[in-house]
Each structure stands twice: as structure tokens, then as C-alpha cells.
């Protein structure tokens, strides 16, 4: 099996090529079915009533008038959800607290943010459902609210949970607060090293809450059967996660719920939880008819996960030659209305690019009256990297060092021990820095009036549980079944790896994403794990198929299997005493009934050995000195990718992540009014980059350090690219304003203020 330490040197025929993705034609013709595209006979339209207040006690909910409206078939409120079914499940990148997910789906006792669901209706038409929502009378006792993390941490701040005592603080505080937890990590003697340092830079950095911004709103259809068995169609990054959360929230056995994933219109981490599914299923259970729930864009903004805004203090101590000897950071992240920000991941990644002897990290997970944060591409890392990479840029300026040379001086190298305990293996940070340094985009100085910012980023990448099966049809066609929704072309990677192993043209391989009843458990599409971990399952299943095909050839030829080789999709007989022609896949498959029956293999594994990834981005930009508007003129993203299975989709990950990071840096933010409501819950005012905002994004795929723990050398690539851009943009602007830009987004107003010395 190929989970060994030695990546076999293979001559690759398919891996590294750029074939058309297997689901491509459906997606360019409108045939692909996304979350809102499903219809069932008798299906009802669901609508969710949401709190207009950021913080309020729900005194009463009167549904009488709504229930009396003709066409209304079911109404649910928090009373329909049994919180006793709560517990914790391990899912995705962190443990999920089911009780808080349930309360987030439907409020109990209190509305904790504007947009928090308080009731839902299913009716024979959307218009009737809308009308019914207006007839539901909710009496609120409005409570004082708190939005920003610094305000929420203050003494006397309005408390979301009057009994919440900070965990991780020792001794434990005696008073409740909005700080859910504190984490501390580090090594060495930071204080002593800081005192020894020739030069110290420090600053306070702030980032705004930003949304993942997938274009497809959350959508699902739920259908409860008379026998208690149910089906949910959902746009999700993880059908097994939807099954686990929905079944637990609805208090039913997992085996009674089948979740069928639709095509998914973007997720970026934001579709790794449930919002609608338990509500739709509970509505369906009440009326016995299928119910569709689709969020509006406004609902997506106010009620689904953005990622944390943050406040980060960072301090670096370095010697004159650029060696960083001490680093410390205190990170406070918004969790939204329930504990669980990615501050722990922020702490773990903050200094992960650098080999620093003395490190101190403190993290605070802080609740406030905002929607609960959800994972967003490298959760927690971009904010920390913004602070740290800005500080490193400041250090480079003060030391008059090239920003890449300074990073090379301190870069983690093979075998370095990360602050979070791991020993970093087969890492290519140095190679990535060197690749950028040698690239024409870096060796050519920026044009007049243009400045250049450089920043680096780290992400762990994970492996984890995956299942895959491979079947050979009677005519030699191959089907690869896995369970990871394809958000960016992963089906292409799956069929390519199978085609490579079996030795057939990639066009002969179909890629299927299966429902929860049709394949073994698989963790969510997330953590940059799919091409690595699910890919490993696909490769192993394909290898079993090859072994089986060899056996069948041996049977046909009546020789020992050791005398059969498999090359280029054909069995070759090595026994010189046999005068036989090679057998191709088609001829073996056609006779499978006679050689042992159907040809298929399923592999379930828990993939270990995911290698971390590193990115280095270079941003060239100019600023309008009279308006503060920023124009990105050139952008380069380099990354340690292990090996690219389908280079176009790997480049696409780098380009897409960079674009999201640029949006985060320049314009995106959650803007709250004094009444605690979101003022820009639309694509018009939540300004994600449009085509005219960006230049081409040049990519450098560094493939000199393939991951030896994957049969083809794969490292995760999806998340790293959003880590460096925030600082890459800010560092470039700082070099124009001659003032460290510490607060995102860098709107024209802020940049003009900095230029004016305000």
C-alpha cells in the first residue's frame, strides 16, 4: 500500500496533465444541480423568521394567526428542538458542540444576534410562507448588546451568557465574562530575549469580520418519511457532517437519515455546519411533506458564518543581522454569539513560518452579538499572519533588509519543531522563498509610483478519514466513488489519480460524489484534505483493482500472479513458457463473471502524514494620492504544493485565495450600526472583488518538495493562499504612506488619512 515513507518514482502519464474536469460539461450548460435546484412532488416552501434585535429575551411567540392562514402546513420554534439531545461530535477541523449548533439553528430563550432564527414556516407557496412570517408575533425584551471584541472584553460589558466563566485561565476567574476561553502557548524565555534584542518592533493590528462570500446561498430540501426515515438534499462541504448534526439535533439515529449532497456553489469553510437542515427536517416531520429552505443573500450575511474580526498585539525582537530571537503575540478573536473562534489556530500558525527560539502566545475566544463564526479558508491564520507579516515587514525596513532575505534568514527548515508541538517534515518554505526571489516578477523592480509588498503564510493541512471505491464496468469503464463534495475541481484529481494507477485514459474514468448511504464515512471537504486523504483512498482502491486484475489475468493464463505485470492498462505475462497476448482492461472486465465476479474495491482509511504548506505572495500596487484608492497592478502567488495533480486547479486555488485575501485587505468588512444591526448585508455594500478590481494573478507552483506520505506527493493547497495576501497588500500600502497600516480593511478613506498624516 502506498502510505509509505518512500514516494515511488513513477513515470506519470496523467498526473500533472490538464484534462477537462469530469463534471465540467454539466457546469457550463446549466445541467449541474445545486442546492436550490431540487424539487420534489408536494414540496412546500419554507421561510425563517429572524430576530431584528442583536440581543433580546424571547418573552413569547404566538403562532396562532400564522397557523390559521390557509396554505400554512407547519410552524416550528425553539420549543420543537430538544436540547437534551446535545453532545459533542468530532467533525471537520474542530469538535462541534451540537447544543450550540441547535440553538444557532433555532433560538431558545434569547436571540443572540440580529438574524438569529426564532421561528420557521412551511407553506404551499413562498408568498404564503412570507405572509405567515409576518403573522407570527414574537414579543422581545430587548437587552443591551455588544458587537466588537474589545468592547465585549471590557468589565461591565453586556453578557451573552451570565454564567460563562473563562476556561484556560488559572486560577479560574470568579466573575463571568464574554471571554469563553484563554489559551497560552510558547517556548523559551521571551522576556529575556526581548531585552537582549538589538531591535524590537511592536504594534496592534485589527481585522474586520469578513464573510466567505460563496455565491450560492445555503439551500436544502428535507423529506421525512412515514417510517421515520428521512432524506436531506443539501449544499454542503460534508454530507456526513450534515447527517451527524441534523440527526443529533432532531434526535434520531444516523441510519434513519440519508444526506445527498448537491453540487456546491462555493463553501470556503462556510458550509461545514448546518443552519437550515434541522429546521427543514423538523418542518417536514410536522407536516409529512418535503420542505425546501433557501437563504436569501441577506440571510447569508446576517445568519451564516463570517470569520472572526480580530485584535492582535504583536512584538518581535531581532538581532542586527536579522535573526529574530523573540516573538510574542496576544490575539483576541470574535467568536460570534457562541464560543469557538479559530483563535487557537491563529496562535498555532502565527509564527509557524519562522524558527524562533523564544515565543509567547496568548489567545482569547470572545463572544459578542454577531452571527457565530464559521470556518473560512485557513481559519484563524490570515489575521495572525497579517499582524506578524506586517511586523516582519517593519523589521525589514528598519534593518534595511530585503523582505525575502529576512524571511529566508528565519525560515523554518526541515525538522524544525513548531510551537504547537509538531515536527515539520518535507516542508518547502525556503524553496518557495527562493523561487520568488528568482522570479522576474520579483527581480524586476516595481514601476514608478508602484510599491511592492511581500508576505508569507503557513497552513497545517490535514488528512483524516476518507472512503473511496473504484468499480470496473463490464466494458472496461472505471467509476470512482468518493464522498467529498467537489468545491474546486477535486473530482478531476480523483479520476486522474485512478486513471494513473490503472493505466487507462482519464476520459474512461467517471467521478461520483456519493450520499451518506452509498459509501463509507468521510470527513468534510475542508482542511485542504481531499486530494491528499481521499486521493489516498482512491489510489489504494485503484491499486487493489490492479492487484485483482492481475489475479484474473493469472487465472486466465493459468500462471502464478507473480508472473503477471500490469502496465499501461494491460496485463503482461512474464512467464516465458506462455505464448499469450497481453490482456487489456476491457477484455478482463468483459469476462469478470468467469474470473471471480464483479471487479470493485472500497477503501476506508484515516490518512496520516499530511504535510504543511507555505505560501509567499508579492503584491505590486499604486494608490491615488488624492482619493486613497488602491489599484493592484501585479500579483504573484508562490506555494509549496508538493505535487500538482491537475496544475490548473492548483493554480486556481492560489488565484482564488489571493483574490479573497485582497478583498479582505482592501474592502470587505461587516459594518454594524449603533443599534447592533448589520448595515451592509448585500453584495452591493459588502464589497468583494469584481473582475475589474484585479490583475492577472501569476502563480509559481513549487514542486521540489513532494510529500513522501502521499503516493503522488500531494500536499493540501486550498487554504494557504488566503494567508499571505492581507499583509502583502498592507505592506505595499505601508511603503507608500510611510506609515504602518494596521487596521483592515484598507479602505480609500483610511489610506487617504494615512497619506495626509491624519
Amino acid at each position, binding site marked *: 500500500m502506498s502510505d509509505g515513507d518512500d514516494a515511488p518514482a513513477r513515470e506519470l502519464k496523467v498526473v500533472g496533465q490538464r484534462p477537462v474536469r469530469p463534471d*465540467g460539461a454539466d457546469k457550463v*450548460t446549466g445541467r449541474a444541480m445545486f442546492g*436550490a435546484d431540487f424539487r420534489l412532488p408536494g414540496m412546500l416552501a419554507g421561510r425563517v423568521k429572524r430576530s431584528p434585535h442583536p440581543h433580546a429575551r424571547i418573552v413569547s411567540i404566538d403562532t396562532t394567526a400564522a397557523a390559521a392562514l390557509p396554505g400554512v402546513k407547519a410552524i416550528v420554534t425553539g420549543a420543537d428542538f430538544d436540547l437534551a439531545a446535545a453532545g459533542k461530535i468530532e467533525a471537520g477541523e474542530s469538535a462541534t458542540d451540537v447544543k450550540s449548533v441547535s440553538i444557532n439553528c433555532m433560538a431558545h430563550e434569547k436571540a443572540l444576534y440580529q438574524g438569529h432564527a426564532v421561528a420557521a414556516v412551511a407553506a404551499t407557496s413562498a408568498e404564503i410562507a412570507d405572509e405567515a412570517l409576518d403573522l407570527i408575533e414574537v414579543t422581545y425584551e430587548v437587552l443591551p448588546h455588544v458587537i466588537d471584541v474589545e468592547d465585549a472584553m471590557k468589565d461591565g460589558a453586556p453578557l451573552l451568557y451570565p454564567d460563562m466563566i473563562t476556561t484556560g485561565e488559572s486560577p479560574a476567574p470568579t466573575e463571568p465574562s464574554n471571554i469563553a476561553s484563554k489559551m497560552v502557548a510558547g517556548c523559551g524565555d521571551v522576556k529575556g530575549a526581548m531585552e537582549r534584542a538589538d531591535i524590537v518592533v511592536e504594534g496592534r493590528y485589527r481585522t474586520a469580520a469578513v464573510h466567505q462570500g460563496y*455565491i450560492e*446561498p445555503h439551500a436544502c430540501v428535507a423529506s421525512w418519511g412515514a417510517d421515520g426515515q428521512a432524506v436531506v438534499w443539501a449544499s454542503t462541504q460534508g454530507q456526513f457532517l450534515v447527517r451527524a448534526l441534523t440527526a443529533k439535533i432532531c434526535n434520531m439515529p444516523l441510519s434513519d437519515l440519508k444526506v445527498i449532497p448537491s*453540487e456546491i456553489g462555493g463553501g470556503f469553510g462556510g458550509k461545514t455546519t448546518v443552519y437550515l437542515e434541522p429546521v427543514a427536517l423538523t418542518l417536514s416531520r410536522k407536516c409529512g411533506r418535503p420542505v425546501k429552505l433557501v437563504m436569501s443573500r441577506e440571510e447569508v450575511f446576517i445568519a451564516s458564518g463570517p470569520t472572526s474580526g480580530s485584535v492582535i498585539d504583536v512584538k518581535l525582537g531581532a538581532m542586527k543581522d536579522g535573526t529574530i530571537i523573540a516573538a510574542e503575540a496576544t490575539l483576541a478573536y470574535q467568536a460570534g454569539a457562541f464560543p469557538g473562534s479559530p483563535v487557537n489556530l491563529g496562535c498555532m500558525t502565527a509564527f509557524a513560518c519562522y524558527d524562533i527560539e523564544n515565543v509567547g502566545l496568548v489567545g482569547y475566544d470572545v463572544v459578542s452579538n454577531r452571527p457565530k463564526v464559521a470556518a473560512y479558508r485557513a481559519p484563524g491564520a490570515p489575521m495572525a499572519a497579517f499582524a506578524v507579516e506586517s511586523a516582519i515587514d517593519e523589521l525589514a525596513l528598519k534593518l534595511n533588509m530585503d523582505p525575502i532575505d529576512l524571511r529566508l534568514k528565519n525560515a523554518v527548515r526541515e525538522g524544525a519543531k513548531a510551537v504547537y508541538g509538531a515536527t515539520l517534515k518535507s516542508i518547502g518554505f525556503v524553496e518557495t522563498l527562493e523561487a520568488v526571489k528568482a522570479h522576474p516578477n520579483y527581480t524586476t523592480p516595481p514601476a514608478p509610483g508602484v510599491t511592492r509588498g511581500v508576505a508569507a503564510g503557513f497552513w497545517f493541512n490535514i488528512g483524516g478519514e476518507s472512503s473511496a471505491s473504484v468499480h470496473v464496468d463490464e466494458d472496461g469503464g472505471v467509476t470512482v466513488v468518493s464522498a467529498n463534495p467537489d468545491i474546486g475541481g477535486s473530482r478531476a484529481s480523483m479520476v486522474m489519480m485512478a486513471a494513473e494507477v490503472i493505466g487507462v485514459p482519464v476520459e474512461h474514468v467517471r467521478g461520483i460524489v456519493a450520499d451518506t448511504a452509498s459509501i463509507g464515512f468521510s470527513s468534510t471537504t475542508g482542511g485542504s484534505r481531499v486530494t491528499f486523504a481521499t486521493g489516498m483512498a482512491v489510489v489504494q482502491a485503484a491499486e487493489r483493482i490492479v492487484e485483482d486484475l492481475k489475479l484474473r489475468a493469472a487465472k486466465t493464463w493459468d500462471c502464478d500472479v507473480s508472473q503477471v505485470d500490469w502496465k499501461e492498462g494491460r496485463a503482461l505475462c512474464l512467464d516465458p513458457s506462455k505464448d499469450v497476448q497481453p490482456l487489456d482492461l476491457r477484455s478482463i472486465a468483459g469476462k469478470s463473471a468467469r474470473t471471480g465476479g464483479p471487479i470493485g474495491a472500497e477503501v476506508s482509511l484515516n490518512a496520516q502524514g499530511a504535510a504543511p504548506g507555505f505560501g509567499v505572495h508579492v503584491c505590486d500596487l499604486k494608490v491615488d494620492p488624492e482619493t486613497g484608492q488602491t489599484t493592484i497592478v501585479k500579483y504573484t502567488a508562490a506555494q509549496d504544493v508538493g505535487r500538482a495533480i*491537475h496544475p490548473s486547479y492548483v493554480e486556481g486555488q492560489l488565484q482564488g485565495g489571493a483574490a479573497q485575501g485582497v478583498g479582505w485587505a482592501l474592502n470587505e468588512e461587516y459594518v454594524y450600526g449603533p443599534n447592533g444591526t448589520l448595515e451592509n448585508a*448585500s453584495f452591493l455594500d459588502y464589497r468583494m472583488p469584481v*473582475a475589474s478590481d484585479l490583475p492577472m494573478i501569476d502563480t509559481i507552483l513549487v514542486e521540489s518538495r513532494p510529500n513522501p506520505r502521499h503516493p503522488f506527493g500531494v500536499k493540501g493547497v486550498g487554504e494557504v493562499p488566503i494567508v499571505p495576501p492581507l499583509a502583502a497588500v498592507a505592506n505595499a500600502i505601508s511603503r507608500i504612506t510611510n506609515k504602518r497600516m494596521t487596521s483592515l480593511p484598507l479602505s480609500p478613506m483610511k489610506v487617504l488619512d494615512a497619506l495626509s498624516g491624519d
Partner: protein
Amino acid sequence: MSRIRIATTVNGEPVEFLGGGSQSLLDALRDELGLTGSKEGCGTGDCGACSVMVDGRLVCSCLMLAPEAEGRRIETIEGMAENGELHPLQTSFLDEAALQCGFCTPGLLIAAKALLDRNPDPTETEVRYWLAGNVCRCTGYDKVVRAVMSAAATMRQAPKATEAVT
């Protein structure tokens, strides 16, 4: 709830359906006609995922009422490939890997076709500004812009090839 009979042409076919006075053309296409290739990303004309052509003009179908379609000629993504043959833009999007999740793709293709129908040789800047109303969150637009430019080049070549044959 008043429903009106609406007669229109969709992808060359005459169709009739019952629509509401406040119903968007997008909802009518999706819910009454089963044409779910046009997507709703925002419902407010800010993302372009619902782009269709109406009487040869590019519009957001979420920003048009279904009754306004009466007597008009509507073209949607479902009609872009002809007789099962992909349009050069569709082929180019596949070849250039210009889609990741694919949700914004139908709208992008309709908008790009509208551009190339009036400007067969657009500059990169023209492509970027024309497509500014089609938000894509996955690709960073790089491969999308390349795919449109490459399809434009193919289409500029194509008539010559036809001439050579005839």
C-alpha cells in the same frame, strides 16, 4: 394571489406559463419552466449569476418581473449549446479551467457571450469591466478572463475556416 398567463420565447421555443405580478423572471424560469441553470446568488442584481438575454440585451433575470417577459425573446444558459454542441466559450471555460464551483459559470458564460457578440476582439480591460457584474468568488477571475479572450480568438478564426471550406 393573482396569476397571469405569460407567453414568451425561451431559447427559441414558444412557451406559456402562469406567473405572479411580483414574481421575478428568474423565479419564473426556475420554478415555472424548470430551467434551473440560471442561479440566484443575491436576488438584487449584484452578482450576475442569473444573467440572461432579453431581446438580445444582457440583463439580470432577478431584476425583471415575469410579466415583463410577455412577447420577449429570452435566452438562457440551457440554450447556449446548440444541438448538443458546446459554444466555443463553454469549451474554452473547460479547457482553461475557468470554473471551480461552477455556480457563477452560467451567468458568466451568458455575459461573456453578450460581450463577444458585440465585440469580437475585446481587450483584457474590456473583458474585466464588462464582466464586473458577474461575481466569482472561487477563481480570482484570472482563468475566466483568459477563457473569454481565448474563446474570442477561436471565434475570430472560425468564420475564416468556414470560408475556406465553402
